[in-house]
C-alpha cells in the first residue's frame, strides 16, 4: 500500500513538469503577438517594443521558459497583463468559489446517484428503471450550462425561490448556501446522471454472482445483501466514474458559474479569453491539470482502500 502510494507520488513531479512545458509552449507559440492584441492595432512600434521588453517577450523562447520555471518554483505565476495583479492572488480568491461549487456538485451526485442506481438495478425493467434511465440520458446529454439556464428560469425567475445570481454579500452561512443551491444542483444533477447509470450497470453485473446467493442462503436480509455485498463489489467502477466525471465537472463548473454570475474560475477564464490575457489563461490551465492529477491520485488510492486485492498486489 505505502509502496504504491510512494510510486504514485514519485510520478507526480515529472507529470507536472510535462504539463507546465506543454502549457507554456502551447500558449507562447500560439498567441502570436500578445502586445498587439492588448495594445491594439493602432499602437506605435515603440510602445509595442517597450511592452514586449517589459513582459520579457523579446528574449528567446527557451530563456523565457527557463525564467517561467524559475518563477513557478518560487510560487510566482506572474501578473495579469490587464490588471497587473498577481495571478496567484486572483486564483486564490476565485478558487474557493469553484471548489465549493464542484465539491457540492460531486457530493450531491454521489448522495442521489448511488441510491438511484441501486433502485434502478433492483427494479430492472420496471417503470422506475425506465424513468431513471430516461432521466440519466437527459442528464448526460444536456450541457450543464443549459441545465443551469433551465433551473434559473424555473426557480429564480418564475418561482423566485432562489437569487438569480451572484454570491452571498454577507458572511451568513444560510445566505451562502441559498446562493449555492441552484448552481450546485445543476452540477449535482449532471453528476447524478453519470453515477446512477454506472451504479445501475455495476450492481446488475454483480447481482448474479455466487457470493450474493450464498449471502441470501445464509439468511441475510435483502438490504444487507444489496448494501454490503453487492454495492461493496460494485463500487470500483463507480469510483472510477466518479473520478472521471469529477474532472469533467471541474471543467464545466466555470460555465455554470458564468450562468449564475459567480466569481470563480469561470470569470477568470472568460476575462482572459476576452482580453487576450494569456498569463491568466496558462495559470488557469495549470490549476486544472493540478486538480485532475490530485483527483486521479485520490481515485487510485481509494481503489486500494476499497479492494484488498489491489491493496496487497
Amino acid at each position: 500500500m505505502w509502496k504504491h502510494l510512494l510510486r504514485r507520488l514519485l510520478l507526480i513531479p515529472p507529470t507536472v513538469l510535462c504539463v507546465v512545458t506543454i502549457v507554456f509552449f502551447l500558449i507562447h507559440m500560439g498567441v502570436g503577438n500578445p502586445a498587439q492584441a492588448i495594445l491594439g492595432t493602432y499602437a506605435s512600434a515603440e510602445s509595442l517594443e517597450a511592452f514586449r521588453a517589459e513582459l520579457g517577450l523579446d528574449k528567446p523562447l527557451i530563456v523565457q521558459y527557463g525564467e517561467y520555471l524559475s518563477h513557478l518554483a518560487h510560487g510566482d505565476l506572474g501578473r495579469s497583463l490587464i490588471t497587473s495583479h498577481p495571478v496567484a492572488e486572483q486564483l486564490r480568491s476565485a478558487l474557493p468559489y469553484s471548489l465549493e461549487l464542484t465539491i457540492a456538485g460531486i457530493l450531491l451526485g454521489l448522495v442521489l446517484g448511488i441510491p438511484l442506481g441501486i433502485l434502478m438495478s433492483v427494479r430492472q425493467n420496471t417503470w422506475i428503471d425506465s424513468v431513471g434511465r430516461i432521466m440519466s440520458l437527459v442528464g448526460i446529454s444536456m450541457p450543464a450550462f443549459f441545465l443551469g439556464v433551465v433551473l434559473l428560469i424555473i426557480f429564480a425567475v418564475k418561482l423566485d425561490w432562489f437569487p438569480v445570481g451572484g454570491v452571498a454579500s454577507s458572511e451568513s452561512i444560510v445566505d451562502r448556501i441559498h446562493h449555492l443551491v441552484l448552481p450546485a444542483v445543476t452540477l449535482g444533477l449532471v453528476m447524478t446522471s453519470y453515477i446512477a447509470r454506472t451504479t445501475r450497470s455495476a450492481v446488475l453485473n454483480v447481482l448474479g454472482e455466487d457470493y450474493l446467493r450464498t449471502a441470501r442462503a445464509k439468511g441475510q436480509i435483502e438490504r444487507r445483501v444489496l448494501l454490503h455485498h453487492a454495492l461493496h463489489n460494485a463500487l470500483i467502477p463507480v469510483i472510477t466514474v466518479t473520478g472521471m466525471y469529477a474532472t469533467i465537472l471541474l471543467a464545466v463548473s466555470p460555465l455554470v458559474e458564468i450562468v449564475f454570475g459567480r466569481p470563480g474560475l469561470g470569470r477568470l477564464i472568460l476575462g482572459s479569453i476576452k482580453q487576450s490575457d494569456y498569463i491568466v489563461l496558462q495559470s488557469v490551465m495549470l490549476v486544472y491539470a493540478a486538480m485532475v492529477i490530485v483527483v486521479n491520485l485520490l481515485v487510485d488510492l481509494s481503489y486500494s482502500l476499497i479492494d484488498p486485492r489491489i491493496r496487497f498486489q
Partner: protein
Amino acid sequence: MTRQWVRHLRGTPATRWGIVILVLMALLAVIGPCVVPQNPYQQDILHRLASPSLQHILGTDQYGRDVLARVVLGTRPSLEIALFSMLFSMAIGVPIGILAAYRGGWVDTLVLRFVDVMMSFPTLVLGVAIAAVLGAGLDKVTLAIGIAFVPRFIRLARAPVLVIRESVYVEAARALGMSTFRVLWRHILPNVVGEILVVATLWMATAIRVEASLAFLGLGVQPPYPSLGNMIREGVDRLTLAPWLALAPGIAILLLVIAINLIGDGMRDLFDPRTQSRRPFAPSVGKRVAGLRSRGRL
C-alpha cells in the same frame, strides 16, 4: 456484416428513435433554411423579443430575428464541427495509437506518457485553451476540438492493438514477410475500427457539447452567424425578458446529443462482450481488452 449491423441497430427501439431524430435534425440543418420562410438574418426592430406566435413559432430575438430560423441554421455548425473534429482526431490519433502499440518499446512508452500528460487536462479546458490560442471561427473551433480529442483516440486505438499484435494470425502475417504497413492495414485496423467508430459516435455527442460550451464562452462561431451555443449565450443575458431565446437552442442541442447518445449506445451493444448473444459476430478482442481493462492492465 454491415447489413447485419444496420439490422441490429434498427432493431433497438431506443436506437431507432436516435436515428430518426438525428436524420430529421441533419435534414433540417441542410435543407431547413430553404424550408423555414423567415430569413435568420432579417432584423425587425418593431418586433424585438416577441413571444412565440403563429408568425414566429419560437419568437424573435433582441434584433427581431426569427429564433426558429436561427436555430435551424445554428444546428448546421454544431453538426459540422462534431463530424469534422472527430474525423480529424481519428485521422491523427488512430494511426499513432496503432503504430505505438504495434511497435512497443520506447516509442509506445513515449506516446503513452504524452497521452497521460495531455489527459491531465479535461477535454473542455484543452479545447478552450487551443481555441483561445487559434482564435474564433468555425474552422478553428473544429481544429481545437479535433486536437483536444487526439490523445483520447490514441489511447482508444492503442489498447486493443496490444492484444491483437500477439495473435497467431498477426504472427503468421509477419512470418509470411508482410510489411508493417500491410499487417497494420489488413490485419489490425479492421479489428479495431468497430470499437473506434462506436466511441467516436459517442464522442461526437461530447464534441457538440464542447462546441456549445466554446460558443458560450465566445470562442465558437461568431455572430451574426448563429450557432446553438452563441444563441444560448445571448439568451442568458435576457432570461427574464425572453426565456425562449436560451431555451430553444438549448433544446435543439439536447435533442441532438440524446439522438447521438442513443445511436452510440446501440452501437456499443454490438461490441460489448457482455451482450455477445445479441451480436452478429464474436468479439474475442473486445472481450480480452475488457478483461485487461478491468484488471487495470490497459
